């Protein structure tokens, strides 16, 4: 089974982002990490591969040169091969652009290696922009089915069967292979890299994919100039004015004072 993971490098989502003096979100000084949902996808793929006792996991990222660090981390926790699609021509792409780049990169990797990916997986959304569109747009371009918000999956001779998380439970969704899966948080955490795996990952090559891999359709979609959704400006949301703080002698008194205020405000 050939599995491809699309991973994105994002600013550490544990850090609060504020606006920089240049009118853009100040993310340069924040550590970059692999998008949490992509790490869940990698862990799920790694467990699937281990259970099957065969298969290979290729990790593909569209991003700047420093995204190599994230790819190295992926290679240390289950990834077998890594590709970085990086080119000035890719910068400023919107989601349709990114999906086109991913599609062309996937087709190039498949052609170069003489394989076809059975499962393409990615996080259900990235923690930075949280659009949740990538998997669906990519499936459309690849012409495959897509199952979103997956928390478990398995394959058999009929294709893939996945557990899709819903607000009140789950759905069991079936599709033919190849398929695109977008992964939500399962009830386990991604593994930590072992030192040996980390060292081995450092030695593994990261293959490059550049703009010359793009099809005509990809060229027409990639880059800022082709973006259909144009960002005008970013800003911090207006802060809600904070109200009164109550800290009486005892917690009991504080509680009584609060209920009095709530009654006066007629919110009860």
């Amino acid at each position, binding site marked *: 089974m050939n599995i491809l993971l699309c991973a994105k490098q994002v*600013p550490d*989502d544990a850090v*609060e*982002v*504020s606006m920089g003096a240049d009118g853009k*979100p100040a*993310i340069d000084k924040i550590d970059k990490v692999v998008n949490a949902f992509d790490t869940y996808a990698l862990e799920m793929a790694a467990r699937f591969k281990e259970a099957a006792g065969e298969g290979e996991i290729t990790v593909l990222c569209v991003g700047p040169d420093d995204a190599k660090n994230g790819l190295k981390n992926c290679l240390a926790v289950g990834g077998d091969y890594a590709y970085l699609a990086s080119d000035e021509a890719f910068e400023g792409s*919107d*989601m*349709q652009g990114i999906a086109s780049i991913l599609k062309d990169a996937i087709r190039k990797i498949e052609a170069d290696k003489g394989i076809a990916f059975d499962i393409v997986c990615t996080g259900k959304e990235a*923690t*930075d922009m949280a*659009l*949740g*569109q990538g998997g*669906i*747009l990519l499936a*459309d*371009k690849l012409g*495959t*089915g*897509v*199952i*979103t*918000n997956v928390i478990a999956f398995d394959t058999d001779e009929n294709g893939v069967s996945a557990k*899709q998380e*819903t*607000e*009140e*439970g789950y*759905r*069991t*969704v*079936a599709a*033919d292979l190849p398929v695109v899966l977008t992964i939500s948080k399962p009830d386990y955490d991604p593994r930590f890299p072992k030192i040996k795996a980390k060292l081995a990952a450092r030695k593994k090559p990261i293959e490059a994919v550049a703009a010359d891999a793009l099809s005509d359709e990809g060229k027409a979609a990639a880059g800022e100039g082709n973006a*259909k*959704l*144009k*960002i*005008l400006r*970013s800003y*911090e*949301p207006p*802060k*809600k004015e*904070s*109200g*009164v703080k*109550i800290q009486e002698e005892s*917690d*009991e008194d*504080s*509680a*009584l004072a*609060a*209920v009095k*205020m*709530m009654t006066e405000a007629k*919110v*009860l």
Partner: protein
Amino acid sequence: MNKQDTKGVLVYIETAGGAPVKVSEEILEPARQIAAKSGSDVTAVVIGENIGDAAAQIAEKGADTVIAIDSPDYKDYNLDAYADVLRQVIDDVKPEAVLIGATQDGKDIAPKLAAAFDSASASDVVGIDFDDDGNIIWTMPAYSGNILYDAVIEEARPQIGTIRSGTFKKLEEAPKGSVESRDIKAADDVIKAVIRDSVKEMAESVNLEEAEIIVSGGRGMGTKENFQQVVDLAQLLGGVVGATRPAIEDGWIPRNHQVGQSGKIVAPKLYIACGISGATQHLTGIVNSDYIVAINKDEDAPIFEVANIGIVGDVNKVLPVMFEEIKKIKEEA
């Protein structure tokens, strides 16, 4: 689609148990705004089986025309089928904009339509405005809600957006529209994934989005037993129980109670946060609440920055007194 060929607004109405979900009614408000701007109409689309009542209801709530696609074929939701039906309606109506509630399924349908029309979709929209050319300016959150950004779709049509629940209010008054039944079949070759089974794990459905009062608990509650105080206060107030991700991960309450970026975005009249420090991912989900009361022992907790009343103290000592006092008031009333 050519920009000059498009006119009007199309709204997809998601239903649950035969009734429109709350956000589907809310999006008729921005739909009317957009239609007023271009002097056009609002068309709503309802897909499902036995959705006549839902369609009639929407005709009273702000749609000029409701297209009802009522068929056993659509008894169960299927992303590929529903998106293809919508694609056919859009092809026919040629709207300048398509609005969809940002539910889990709505957020899947929107990019499918964006792909079908080689357009773009805005996700989790929290506000709209217009640029000088009449294009919609979509306001969206990024970085867990710490940053907002405005974006436009200048040329591609239709402009598509999924609107976050609680952003707009249902219209109080609306023109009366008409319902039109249509028989539209999804193309045979579009269905690539099929739902075999749908399971409700949670015993009760939790309606956080429509709740007027929410009492939420976080890790500061300490134990599952202590968390019961949150449940008790919610019951006393006739409210709904909310929770933070840590409280859910600790197994104190099922995950359909989660409030925040990865749970429900809520906008109650009263939100009581118990033992919640106020991580951005949680605050993002509650900032539209009318009145926030927070109880936390750490006086520097971020939750106090958004609270109307912040009680600095031990939540497990404050809550029992609050409960008794409110109970007394209720009994006197």
